């Protein structure tokens, strides 16, 4: 049986290009390209590294999003993934992380029922748009498999039954060991994502699209209706007032004026 790996991926707006509409305070997505979320690229890369070294590894990339989120599946397959699944349904709009993890779990189990057991799930630690880092652990719980978050190095045993992972935490690394199947969330230290390969780009791509009916989910159990968390408002902060510009003709004068101001305000 193949060693089946699921990689969870999300298309996010390129966060360097995202702008706020000054009038409405909402995000201007128009003209902002969607990209594969950064941590997810590391998650995919680690799966590809396993496939590089071992025979009979099959990588399926799953994404939930609007139709254009298919782009991240093209990208993943161009890099070497075997298959992509797009979960797309208007009813999924405004799903919180709990519902998202439920939907992903349902899709993964549907894939497994048709194709065989899952041995590993990779996800990025967090997405750059919502910044929650919640879907990975929630999905692991929903799949009832152990999780290892903040993975900065990953090694799998020759028999592919045991995984050794270094977790990058605050000021230290923790080494852990876990048996497959398990879910691992990747951070950028984990690896250097590769570029797409031309011969993959031109090969036929296996991409499947599922809606909630395909997954056997009820519209009331997903989206805003099914989510325990509800966004009541979103808004930018007021622009900072900006501080005082420290006068001075030279570095020496500026330094002296700064120190005087700091002393005056009892900051030093």
């Amino acid at each position, binding site marked *: 049986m193949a060693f089946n790996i699921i990689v969870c991926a999300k298309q996010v707006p390129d966060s360097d290009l995202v702008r706020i509409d000054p009038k409405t305070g909402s995000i201007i997505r128009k003209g902002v390209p969607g990209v594969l979320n950064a941590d997810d690229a590391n998650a995919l890369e680690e799966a590809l590294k396993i496939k590089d070294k071992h025979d009979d590894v099959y990588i399926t990339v799953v994404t939930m999003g609007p139709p254009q989120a298919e782009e991240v599946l093209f990208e993943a397959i161009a890099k070497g993934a075997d298959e992509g699944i797009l979960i797309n349904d208007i009813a999924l709009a405004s799903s919180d992380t709990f519902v998202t993890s439920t939907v992903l779990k349902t899709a993964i189990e549907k894939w497994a029922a048709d194709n065989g057991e899952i041995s590993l799930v990779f996800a990025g630690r967090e997405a750059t*748009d919502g*910044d929650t880092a919640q*879907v990975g652990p929630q999905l692991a719980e929903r799949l009832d498999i152990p999780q290892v978050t903040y993975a900065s190095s990953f090694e799998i045993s020759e028999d592919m039954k045991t995984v050794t992972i270094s977790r990058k935490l605050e000021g230290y690394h923790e080494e852990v060991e876990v048996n497959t199947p398990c879910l691992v969330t990747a951070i950028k230290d984990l690896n250097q994502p590769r570029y797409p390969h031309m011969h993959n780009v031109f090969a036929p791509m296996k991409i499947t699209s599922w809606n909630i009916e395909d997954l056997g989910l009820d519209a009331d159990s997903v989206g805003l209706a099914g989510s325990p968390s*509800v966004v009541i408002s979103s808004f930018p902060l007021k622009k900072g007032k900006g501080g005082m510009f420290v006068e001075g003709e030279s570095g020496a004068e500026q330094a002296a004026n700064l120190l005087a101001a700091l002393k005056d305000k009892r900051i030093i």
Partner: protein
Amino acid sequence: MTDKTYRDLWVFAEQNDGVLAPASAQLLGEGTRLVKDMDGDNTLCAVVAGNEEDSRQAAADAIAYGAKKVYVIADENLTNYTTDGYTKAVCAAITEYNPDIVLYGATPQGRDLAPRIAARLGLGLTADCTRLDIKADDYIAYAQAETMLDPSTLDLDDVLLKQTKPSFGGKLMATMVCPKTKPQMATVRPGVMDSLQKDPAATGEIVAVNAGITAEDIRVTVKGKTVDAADGVALADAEIIVAGGRGLGDASGFELLQKLADKIGGVVATSGAPIDAGWIDESLMIGQTGTIVRPRIYIACGISGSIQHLAGIENSETIIAINTDKDVPIFEIADYCIVGDLYEVVPELIEHWDEYITK
């Protein structure tokens, strides 16, 4: 939701070898304020898991920082933090005692644990909050003073916990509520809330919770820990930070910053550009993807201020920025802006600092 009565505000008291995490102490400080705003009669509680000795110490710390009651799950199987062990422990306490609100520090541990608990219990969870309100008036006052939100369009009550968090790297804020499930849960960014003065004489009730943890529950084995090199002072705790950016020009610029840091009792840090250039170790990175800091004084030298970087320093008390370009974004949030060459200004600061400090 069932007819169960949910009351009290709990803080997950994260401990490392028996020492309460600063983020948990800060949450107890915030909890002291919030618990008064809750509907009905509520108590500020902590929940702590660990082995016998560590959990006892951390419980005492939690009481010293304001908890009136501590639920303790003491078990040798909880000596190391593991997702499996701690999830089972905290879930047992929550389902037995039904708190109305549970807060976790948005530390690596809190962000590993809280979503697992939320998924197991089917609860809403808001990640990495920087503000919490219960009273509608408090939220409205915040919205008017600090945001571009028009709160008059909102239907606000005085009951639900309003959980405000940054998204898109701080470009946008969002406020969430969890109206359908209890307890309401959130992780809260370290360094944003204020802890109370530690009071070793404070007293509180200890409630032992038996979660029946077995070795088989724990599927991930902790093999060891390696403390990272070149990270003597935790940036997150530093009082004074001297940070350098692309404007340093090369790696040797950090030597000058180190001299300033030594003079004023600070630590050196970096924005993203010097790491990309290979000038300095990545562990010293400040920003949304590095460490979020909250120093008393932040001195930014040759840093223009990307969104990611600004998200990491916005809670600094005083920001001083030195840059040759007067139009850089960091000047929009800095308290003191110096348009000039850091190589001219910084040596002067080093030389004359002592003349100005208040003894």
